């Protein structure tokens, strides 16, 4: 069965990062041989002075294919992991959604978008989770991480939000290679310009320092741009990707 796992607020100002926690959780699931996990994405939520985020208010989500019999063990162990390994003073939340059991994905997606626009309360998150029958739990501190954990899953389900965690390692910065080679030597599904042009297999791209990918149309996209005077496609910088 396909599941979505969302976590949030496992860090404190001095310690930890939710992306690292998610990666450890992925290892835990795979080491237990409960199934295999796919692409970890980071989803930006609202930046507002009244929200108690550490420094960026983002949430993390990954998908996994697991045997249904392991679902309860996974939820239990993931909760224990968050309690044990999150930074002191953090407010971790966990959301686990079994795709095939979910009725009302649109509501979850709408909730995800809401968390980008307005302050959502913990009660709202729990009310929706109960209504949809999805797992949502808190594992320390104020437990406010449940808001983002649920939102991370909703936003991942849009297939059009967030950046993938980590960077690609293809060739050295400055190398120019074809789209076909990028796709055959990395998890990239598509190479697309910032204004939506999908590059052909034989087109060439100059690689920058840090290669990050984003989730668009359900695919892992490497975004590229052309300098004003330039003809060459170049991979986007972090600054280009700040709105993803």
């Amino acid at each position: 069965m396909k599941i979505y796992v969302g976590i949030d607020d496992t860090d404190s100002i001095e310690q930890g990062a939710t992306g690292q926690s998610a990666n450890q959780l992925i290892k835990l699931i795979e080491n237990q041989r409960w199934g295999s996990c796919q692409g970890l994405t980071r989803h930006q939520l609202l930046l507002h002075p009244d929200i108690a985020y550490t420094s960026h208010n983002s949430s993390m989500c990954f998908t996994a294919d697991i045997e249904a019999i392991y679902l309860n063990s996974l939820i239990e162990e993931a909760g224990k992991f968050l309690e044990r390994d999150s930074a002191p003073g953090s407010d971790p939340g966990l959301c686990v959604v079994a795709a095939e059991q979910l009725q009302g994905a649109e509501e979850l997606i709408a909730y995800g978008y809401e968390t980008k626009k307005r302050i959502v309360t913990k009660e709202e998150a729990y009310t929706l989770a109960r209504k949809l029958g999805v797992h949502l739990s808190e594992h320390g501190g104020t437990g406010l991480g449940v808001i983002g954990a649920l939102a991370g899953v909703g936003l991942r389900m849009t297939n059009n939000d967030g950046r993938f965690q980590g960077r690609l390692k293809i060739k050295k910065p400055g190398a120019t290679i074809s789209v076909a080679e990028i796709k055959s030597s990395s998890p990239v599904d598509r190479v697309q310009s910032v204004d939506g042009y999908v590059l052909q297999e034989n087109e060439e791209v100059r690689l920058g320092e840090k290669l990050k990918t984003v989730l668009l149309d359900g695919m892992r996209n490497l975004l590229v741009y052309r300098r004003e005077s330039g003809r060459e496609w170049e991979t986007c910088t972090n600054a280009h990707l700040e709105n993803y």
Partner: protein
Amino acid sequence: MDFWIKNERGQAQFKGGRHDWPQASAIAAGCLHFSLDDEDELVAEEERSCYNCRYRRWTEHSFICMKR
């Protein structure tokens, strides 16, 4: 020149917004508190920048320094 403004909560908010790369890098170069944030949260190309610092807390249009 002072690059900070006190917000209504008394916190130090960067006046340069989210894209003053040279200034954010210049401040971090002289800051003893600078600590590189997690890889996924880096925004500036030059590593040492307030924009890449663990102690910057993003706001809608800029950031607050949690160490000032």
